[in-house]
């Protein structure tokens, strides 16, 4: 689509284990959007006009929002199917898969629907600070209290 620098920054800010999955999901969404846009009338491909202070690029188009929603639904369906695989797949693998898919969904909503990929980096930094602080703090608490063992 357009330059992918903000996504790259976001991916770098994420946990290393999720970087590959996030990059793949993002690339899939971009390709799906490009394919879908070729068949659409011009008004569906045009983002809303005008930028507010703090917006670096135009917001996504309605069709891009719809495609992200489809991706979210598909991932949710895979999540549910994975949760029913208990017994056939080791629990540890299921946990990793489910957390990975939840992270991808979280990322897609934050980047596309909350516009973190098109807005000023200050918003992204605030959000990542809060989310990372929460994850770190409560991982320490749970590990200390042996809740994860």
């Amino acid at each position, binding site marked *: 689509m357009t330059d992918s620098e903000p996504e790259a920054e976001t991916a770098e800010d994420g946990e290393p284990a999720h970087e590959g999955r996030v990059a793949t999901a993002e690339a899939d969404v971009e390709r799906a959007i490009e394919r879908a846009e070729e068949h659409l009338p011009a008004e569906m491909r045009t983002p809303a006009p005008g930028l507010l*202070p*703090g917006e670096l690029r135009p917001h996504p*188009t309605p069709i891009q929002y719809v495609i992200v929603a489809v991706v*979210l639904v598909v991932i949710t369906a895979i999540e549910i199917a994975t949760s029913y695989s208990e017994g056939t797949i080791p629990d540890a693998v299921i946990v990793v898969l489910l957390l990975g898919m939840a992270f991808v969904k979280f990322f897609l909503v934050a980047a596309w*629907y909350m516009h973190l990929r098109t807005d000023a980096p200050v918003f992204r930094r605030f*959000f990542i600070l809060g989310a990372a602080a929460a*994850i770190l703090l409560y991982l320490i608490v749970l590990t200390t209290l042996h809740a994860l063992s």
Partner: protein
Amino acid sequence: MAIEQAARDTAVEPVEAPVNGHDDTHTGVINPKLAMWLFLSSDCLFFGAFIATFLLYRDRPGQHGPTPADVFDIPFTSVTSFILLMSSLTMVLALAAIQRGEMRRFRIWIMATALFGATFIGGQIFEFTQFTREGLNIDTNLFGSSFYVLTGLHGAHVTAGIIWLISLWGLSMQGRIGPGQSEAIEVAGLYWHFVDVVWIVIFTVVYLIPK
């Protein structure tokens, strides 16, 4: 010379015209939006505390009464999760509509978002009622306490969001919100999407991860 120099030093920069009807700010971003992101950042810690508490207490030995495996109805909760995900889509479509000046379409999408949210809350009330019938109350065991507090607080956030969305719909019906106030919709949307991403985490951690 000195007077001219002093005049140059104290000269005020020309004021730029507001961008899209919004005054410039010292931070270069819209203040309500910045405030909302700060609030959401702090809300991460808020929900993190209750998710951690749930993980801590869920499998504590010696608990009496129903366990997660006894009460959870994954297909039902999956449907309500799907509804909440769809409400995020209608929310961004409402924002896109108002930014294009399509007020009728904006009202439809924002009301659809509120209705999806209300359906989610209806599902949560139904779920809580079912759990109560199966013997899981807030004071039954540690699992019950941490589960009801976590999901109940999330439900309270959704309810606040529904009231906010209906208020915006009402204001637009009165003509008090128009395309020039799209930032108000974006800020409400940020809150709504945050409620959605919190549910993404709760759905996975509380309902789907094997016990």
